[in-house]
C-alpha cells in the first residue's frame, strides 16, 4: 500500500474509532504510533530503533512547553472560580428588575445573564441547567410561550464557548499557530453581535405578538425598597442623587430616620452616594480609557510595541476583502480609527493603525459619543427615584465585581499590556479575591476548582499530545498533501471552499465535542486556507460561530437535553427543538454577515495589533 493511501486509511480509521467511543487522546496516540512505525520502518535497524519514538517524545515535549497552551489551565481556573463565586440567581433577579418595563423582560434578562455568564464560564450543560431552574419555570408560570422560553435558554447557554476568554479559542490558536490575543479580539465583536441579534429577535417577536410574553404580575415587578429609603426620599427629595447630595451637607434629618430597626448613619449615606455615582464613574472611565489608549498611550511611546502583539504574530495571508467599508456607528469604548480600516498605506506600514496616533475622525467621533453618553447619563440621573436607586444598588452588588474583573482581564489582553497567560493568571487570582469578597469562597470550593482545572487541562492537553503525533505522521505519509491536491483539483472559488469547510465542520459538530473538532479536523483545513487567500483568523472566528449552530441543531443538540431534564413534564423535546430552530437560523445569518463584512471580526485585531 502506498504511503498516501495509508494516510487516508489513517483518517478513515480515526473517524471510525472516535465513533466507537474510545478516549480520543489515546486513539490518536495509538494510530499515530502504528502508522508512524510503518512510515519510518527501516529493515536495517533494530525494531526498537524506529524514529517514530523520537517523533512521539518530541511532540509530547512540544506540547509540554507550548507557550500558547499554558494559558489554558489559568483561564480554566478563572472560569471555575468565577462560576462558583458569583451568584447567578441574584444577578438574574437584579437584571430582571432593571428590565421590568421591556417587553418579554424575563427572556431579555435570561439572554443578558447568559451572555454575561458566558464570559465567566464555558460550560454549556451547567449554564442551561442553572438557567432552566432560575428562569425557565418562572417564564412558563408567567405564561410565556414554551418555544420562546426554551429557545433563549438553549441558545444563550451555548454562547459561553464563543465569548472570550474561552478555552476553545486558545486551543484553536495553538493548533493554527495564531496569536491568542488577535483571536480574542476578533471573536469579541461577533460574540456580542450574535447575542445582540438574539436580543433583537426576542424583542421583535414580543412586540409583534405580545401574547407570547405576557406582562408580569404586579408583585413580581415590585422593587423591594427598604423603608428608610422611602422615608429618606420623602424627607429630602424624590430624586435620590439630589437627596443624597443634600444629606451630605445637612445630615440632620437623615440621621433621625429609623425604620425596621435600621438607624441611618452618615457612613451609610456616603456608601449610598458612592453607589449612586457608579454609572457616572463607569461612563467617565470608559471615555478616559478610549482617550488614553488612542491619544496618550500611543504618543508616549510608539516604538514600544505591545509585547503580546509581537509575540508570535504569524504573517497572515492577504485577508478577505481588504478595504472593507468602515462600520457606520462608533462603539463607545473603541471609538476611533474607523476611517482607516483596511486602507493600504496603513496596512503596509510597520506601525499598527493604533500606533500612528489618533486618526483624523477620532476627535469628532469621541466628542459625539461623549455627548450622547453624557446626555443619557443626565436623563438617567434625572429619573433616579427610590425604585431606580434600589435597582442600581442591586445591580452594582451582584454584577459589578464579575464585570470589573472581566473588563480588566480582557482590557489588559486586548490592549497588549500583558500576554494572554499573564492576564489569565491575574484573572484567576482576581476571581479568588472576588469570591472572598462575596463571601462564597470556602475550602471545598478551592479544592473543587483546582481539581476540575487539573482534569480539564489534562483532557485538552493529552488530546493535543495525541493529535500532534497523529498529524505529524499524517503529513509524513503524505495524506495531508493528498487532501490538498484533491481539494485544489476541484478548482473551487474561495467562497465555495469556505462553504464546504464550514459545512463539514457543522456536520462534525453534531456527534463530536468542540475539542475533537478543533484538535483533529481543523488542522486538515488550515494549510488550504492559504491557497484560497482566506485569513485563518477570520476562518477560525467563523468556525467558532459555526459550532454554535452545530450545537443548536436538532436532534443532537446537547443543551436541549439539559433543558428537558429540568423542565416540567409537559414540555416536550420537540417543543424545545422548535424553540431552538430560529436561533440556528440567526447563527447562520451571523456567519453570512461575518463573511460578507469581515471588518466585524478583523477590525478590532487589525486596529490594535496591525497586520491584515
Amino acid at each position, binding site marked *: 500500500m502506498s504511503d498516501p493511501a495509508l494516510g487516508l486509511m489513517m483518517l478513515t480509521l480515526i473517524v471510525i474509532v472516535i465513533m466507537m467511543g474510545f478516549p480520543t487522546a*489515546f486513539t490518536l496516540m495509538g494510530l499515530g504510533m502504528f502508522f508512524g512505525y510503518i512510515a519510518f520502518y527501516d529493515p536495517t535497524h533494530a525494531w526498537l530503533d524506529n524514529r517514530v519514538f523520537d517523533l512521539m517524545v518530541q511532540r509530547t515535549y512540544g506540547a509540554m512547553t507550548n507557550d500558547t497552551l499554558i494559558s489554558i489551565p489559568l483561564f480554566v481556573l478563572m472560569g471555575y472560580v468565577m462560576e462558583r463565586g458569583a451568584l447567578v440567581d441574584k444577578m438574574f433577579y437584579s437584571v430582571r428588575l432593571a428590565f421590568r418595563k421591556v417587553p418579554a423582560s424575563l427572556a431579555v434578562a435570561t439572554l443578558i445573564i447568559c451572555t454575561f455568564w458566558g464570559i465567566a464560564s464555558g460550560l454549556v450543560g451547567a449554564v442551561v441547567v442553572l438557567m432552566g431552574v432560575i428562569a425557565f419555570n418562572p417564564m412558563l408560570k408567567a405564561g410565556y410561550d414554551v418555544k420562546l422560553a426554551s429557545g433563549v435558554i438553549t441558545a444563550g447557554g451555548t454562547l459561553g464557548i464563543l465569548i472570550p476568554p474561552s478555552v476553545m479559542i486558545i486551543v484553536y490558536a495553538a493548533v493554527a499557530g495564531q496569536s491568542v490575543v488577535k483571536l480574542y479580539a476578533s471573536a469579541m465583536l461577533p460574540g456580542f453581535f450574535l447575542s445582540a441579534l438574539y436580543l433583537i429577535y426576542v424583542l421583535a417577536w414580543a412586540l409583534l405578538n405580545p401574547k407570547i410574553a405576557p406582562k408580569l404580575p404586579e408583585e413580581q415587578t415590585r422593587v423591594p425598597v427598604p423603608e428608610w429609603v422611602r422615608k429618606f426620599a420623602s424627607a429630602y427629595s424624590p430624586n435620590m442623587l439630589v437627596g443624597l447630595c443634600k444629606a451630605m451637607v445637612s445630615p440632620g434629618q437623615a440621621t433621625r430616620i429609623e425604620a425596621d430597626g435600621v438607624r441611618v448613619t452618615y457612613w451609610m449615606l456616603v456608601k449610598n452616594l458612592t453607589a449612586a455615582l457608579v454609572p457616572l464613574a463607569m461612563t467617565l472611565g470608559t471615555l478616559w480609557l478610549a482617550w488614553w489608549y488612542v491619544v496618550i498611550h500611543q504618543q508616549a511611546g510608539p516604538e514600544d510595541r505591545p509585547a503580546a502583539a509581537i509575540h508570535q504574530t504569524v504573517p497572515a495571508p492577504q485577508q478577505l476583502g481588504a478595504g472593507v467599508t468602515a462600520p457606520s456607528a462608533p462603539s463607545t469604548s473603541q471609538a476611533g480609527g474607523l476611517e482607516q480600516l483596511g486602507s493600504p498605506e496603513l496596512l503596509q506600514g510597520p506601525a499598527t493603525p493604533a500606533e500612528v496616533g489618533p486618526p483624523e475622525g477620532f476627535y469628532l467621533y469621541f466628542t459625539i459619543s461623549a455627548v450622547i453618553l453624557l446626555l443619557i447619563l443626565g436623563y438617567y440621573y434625572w429619573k433616579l427615584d427610590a425604585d431606580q436607586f434600589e435597582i442600581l444598588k442591586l445591580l452594582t452588588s451582584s454584577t459589578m465585581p464579575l464585570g470589573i474583573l472581566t473588563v480588566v482581564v480582557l482590557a489588559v489582553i486586548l490592549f497588549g499590556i500583558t500576554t494572554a497567560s499573564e492576564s489569565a493568571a491575574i484573572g484567576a487570582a482576581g476571581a479568588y479575591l472576588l469570591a472572598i469578597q462575596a463571601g462564597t469562597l470556602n475550602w471545598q470550593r478551592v479544592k473543587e476548582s483546582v481539581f476540575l482545572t487539573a482534569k480539564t487541562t489534562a483532557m485538552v492537553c493529552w488530546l493535543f499530545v495525541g493529535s500532534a503525533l497523529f498529524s505529524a505522521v499524517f503529513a509524513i505519509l503524505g495524506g495531508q498533501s493528498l487532501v490538498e491536491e484533491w481539494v485544489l483539483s476541484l478548482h473551487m472559488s474561495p467562497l465555495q471552499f469556505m462553504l464546504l469547510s464550514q459545512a463539514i465542520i457543522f456536520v462534525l459538530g453534531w456527534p463530536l465535542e468542540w475539542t475533537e473538532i478543533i484538535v483533529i479536523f481543523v488542522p486538515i483545513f488550515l494549510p488550504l486556507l492559504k491557497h484560497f487567500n482566506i485569513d485563518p483568523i477570520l476562518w477560525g472566528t467563523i468556525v467558532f460561530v459555526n459550532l454554535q449552530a452545530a450545537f443548536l441543531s436538532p436532534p443532537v443538540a446537547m443543551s436541549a437535553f439539559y433543558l428537558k431534564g429540568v423542565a416540567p413534564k409537559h414540555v416536550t423535546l420537540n417543543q424545545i427543538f422548535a424553540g431552538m430552530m430560529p436561533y440556528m437560523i440567526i447563527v447562520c445569518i451571523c456567519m453570512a454577515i461575518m463573511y460578507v463584512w469581515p471588518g466585524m471580526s478583523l477590525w478590532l485585531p487589525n486596529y490594535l495589533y496591525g497586520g491584515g
Partner: protein
Amino acid sequence: MTVQRFLLFVDHVSTWAGKAFSWIILLLTAVVCVEVFKRYILNNPTAWMFDADNFMYGTLFMMCGAYTLAQDAHVRGDFLYGSMRPRMQASLDLVLYVVFFLPGIAALIYAGWDYAHASWIIGEHVNDTADGPPVYHFKTVIPIAGALVMLQGIAEIVRCVVCLQTGEWPDRLADAEEIDVVEEQLSGSQYIDKEAVKEAIAKVHEIDEVARQRGMGGETKL
C-alpha cells in the same frame, strides 16, 4: 472482591498523584502574578521565569493524565457509545485498549525514558535562554506520567473484563464534577422556589448523563 480492591487501589494511586500535582495550578497562578508585578511595576523581570512557567504547566497536565483517566474524563465520542449496553461498551473498550492504548503508552514510556536518560547524562540545560535552568528533571516527567497512565490503563482493562462478566461497570471513586456548580449555585440562592431547587439538585447528575448521550441512552427516565 479482591479485583474491586485492586481497581480502587489503582484509582487511589492515580487520583492521589493527580490531586497532589493539581495544586501546581495555584503555584503557577501566584508565580505568574508576582512576575507580572516584577516586570511591569518594578521593571525587573526574572530571566528563568518563562521556563519555570513551562515546567509547572507541563508537569501539571502530564501528571494529571492518569487521574483524568481514572475519572473517565478524557473526551470520547460518546454519541453512539453512550447508547450501547455496558457489555458492548466493555468489549469495544477492551479491544481498543489492547490495540491502541497499550502500544501507544508503552512507546511513550520507552521513548520518554530514553529522552530523559540522555538529558540526565549530559546534564542538559534550557538552551533557548542564556544561562537556562536545568531541564532533565522536567523531561523525566514524561516516563513517570506514562507509567502512571499505563497503570491506570491496566486497571481500566480489568474493569472491562469485570464488566464483561457481570454486565455492569465497576464503581469509580467519587470526585468533583463540572455539573456540581449547579448545586452550589442553587443552594446559595435566595430568589427561587425551594422545591424546584431541591428537585433539580437531586437529579442533576442524571440529567448530565442523559444529555451527554443525547437522550439515546435513557430518555424514558426523564
